[in-house]
């Protein structure tokens, strides 16, 4: 689960990390009111969970409340990479002297949390990593003792900053690590961390991704999920316990197992088609869950064919077949479907589907090829 910028920054503030004064606005009038209360120049920032908001025109300065209202009016309702802006953050503008980067991530290879810092802040850290990897400094944190001050000093001196800021930086780095651990984050970034004209350090932007597997420990964080950011399909899938990712293609897929689901998408592509989604029904899915999955697939108007690829182990093919029929009983559709069911109870599954007059296949390649042809409107048997 990803937090919006304003949510991330409010969480940072709880761990002693300085953030700009500001507030959320959902109308231009709100934005004027916030700007008036703050006084002086403000920055108006679209709250959407996507990178490149600035380049897309979703972040703008305003000199006074009047301009704040006008600017907010332009940003609210914008479409940024497919997401509609429904909230803006109105922050007091900062006098930026220098921008650095500070982030905490799970370092998979080291199996530890790493803290990363770079004197090249304010821009996409991936660009820095690609262009000047030596400008990204990194320390790995031993879980037995947590982040040590010497590690924050290694980052600090490595960036070559003015020693006057060493305490500020150390406190912010410790706050970020504590925030990361306490909220079970998988990513927590301050980019940029700004050194201001009046000699302070402040988190001008924030990003936090939470570990979904640990949300049970954080009901307070789970409760602030921003449902604006989910499509209806994504919400339905989440509620049904399905792993679902919408894509731009035409062939809907329903598969048991994440690796096999990815492989199925890849094979559709390999045979010239394009997958409409990733969908993993998980292990041992019951008919009801399968039906929910099919309804979600069919609700995508781009879908021109559906491919069922089930390799039954714990999952029973007959149960999947029953779920498919359940969904087809409510949703009338003319979309062609290809079923490839192998493994546990495959015979029973095929018999159940016989009534639905579906295309069938024995191998994954055969199934993918049939689905690609069907989506292209070609007759297949």
């Amino acid at each position: 689960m990803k937090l919006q910028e304003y949510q991330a920054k409010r969480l940072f503030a709880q761990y002693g990390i300085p953030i700009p004064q500001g507030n959320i606005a959902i109308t231009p009038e709100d934005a004027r009111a916030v700007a008036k209360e703050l006084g002086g120049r403000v920055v108006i920032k679209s709250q959407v969970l996507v990178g490149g908001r600035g380049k897309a025109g979703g972040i703008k300065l305003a000199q006074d409340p009047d301009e704040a209202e006008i600017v907010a009016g332009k940003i609210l309702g914008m479409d940024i990479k497919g997401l509609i802006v429904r909230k803006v953050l109105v922050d007091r503008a900062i006098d930026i002297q220098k921008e650095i980067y500070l982030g905490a991530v799970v370092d998979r290879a080291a199996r530890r949390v790493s803290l990363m810092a770079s004197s090249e802040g304010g821009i996409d850290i991936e660009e820095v990593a690609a262009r000047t990897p030596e400008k990204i400094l990194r320390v790995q944190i031993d879980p037995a003792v947590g982040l040590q001050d010497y590690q924050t000093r290694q980052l600090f001196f490595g960036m070559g900053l003015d020693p006057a800021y060493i305490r500020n930086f150390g406190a912010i780095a410790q706050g970020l690590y504590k925030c990361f651990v306490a909220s079970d984050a998988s990513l927590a970034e301050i980019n940029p961390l700004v050194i201001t004209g009046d000699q302070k350090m402040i988190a001008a932007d924030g990003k936090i991704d939470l570990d979904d597997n640990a949300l049970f420990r954080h009901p307070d964080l789970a409760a602030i999920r921003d449902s604006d950011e989910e499509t209806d399909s994504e919400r339905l899938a989440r509620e049904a316990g399905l792993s679902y990712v919408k894509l731009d293609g035409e062939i809907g897929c329903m598969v048991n197992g994440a690796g096999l689901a990815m492989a199925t998408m890849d094979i559709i592509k390999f045979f010239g088609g394009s997958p409409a989604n990733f969908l993993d029904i998980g292990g041992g899915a019951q008919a009801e869950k399968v039906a929910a999955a099919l309804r979600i697939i069919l609700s995508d108007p781009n879908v021109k064919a559906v491919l069922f690829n089930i390799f039954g182990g714990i999952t029973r093919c007959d149960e999947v077949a029953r779920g498919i029929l359940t969904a087809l009983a409510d949703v009338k559709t003319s979309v062609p479907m290809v079923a490839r069911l192998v493994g546990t109870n495959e015979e029973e599954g095929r018999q159940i589907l016989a009534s639905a007059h579906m295309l069938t296949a024995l191998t994954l390649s055969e199934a993918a090829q049939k689905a690609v042809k069907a989506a292209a409107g070609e007759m297949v048997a």
Partner: protein
Amino acid sequence: MSILVNKNTRLLVQGITGREGEFHTKQMVAYGTRVVAGMTPGKKGLEVAGVPVFNTVREAVKETGANTSIIYVPARAAPDAILEAADAEIPLIICITEGIAVQDMINVCAVLDWVGVRLIGPNCPGLTTPGETKVGIMPAQIHAVGPVGLVSRSGTLTYEVVWAMTQQGLGQTTCVGIGGDPVNGTSFIDCLRMFEQDPKTEVVVLIGEIGGVDEEKSAQFIKDKMSKPVVAFIAGQTAPPGKRMGHAGAIISGGTGTAAEKIKAFNAVGVPVANTPEEIPGLLELVMRGK
């Protein structure tokens, strides 16, 4: 021969009285696995599929000589279960459980490294040495005895590949599912090293997916340390960045972890990468002939 598990494996099932634990215990017993003990706190004295249940792992080990443990407990209890097995000095632990918080795994791995215990998983299908033992949830009938070692981050995709091999007459020494989580106990390289040393394994199949850099590191290891041929498959070529593809570990983030990079790394060291799972048996025959 084989790696990690064989007919001498004496298995303890943690969470044996749960729905999954009971179901798979029966399956494993039916396959011929020597399941010697089960453990569920407070359920001492029960039996599941003829297997005695104990209150603690220490007690189970003491009474039965279990030397391997498999864990079927819910995600919130799994870190504790892993550490209990390690504390009882079980040298090999397989954790099937999906959905363990990543910071819990960071802490658990720090302890396991310290005490020198091997963990397979979590979020994995376990492992099978065909004809000897099945320790996990893989369907039994897809396997056959033969010269191929297999290691994979996936579950059903593994079954697909194993089944395709078995149908082509290519049996397996051991099939290992290392799991789809970002932080786990055993890496591809750990398994490649063991397969390289296993006399019966002639060729290795590696099934990777997007996320992390374990495949890239494996390519380097194959180049530097392996004499046996390897064939690879990478799932997720069509996956978009920033989206978690089911597995917690299957995510392209920060510009790394793409399938293209992984395929490139394998190609660069002469490891053929299959386009579809069904191509794998053919590639295997090719590299085995080329030896």
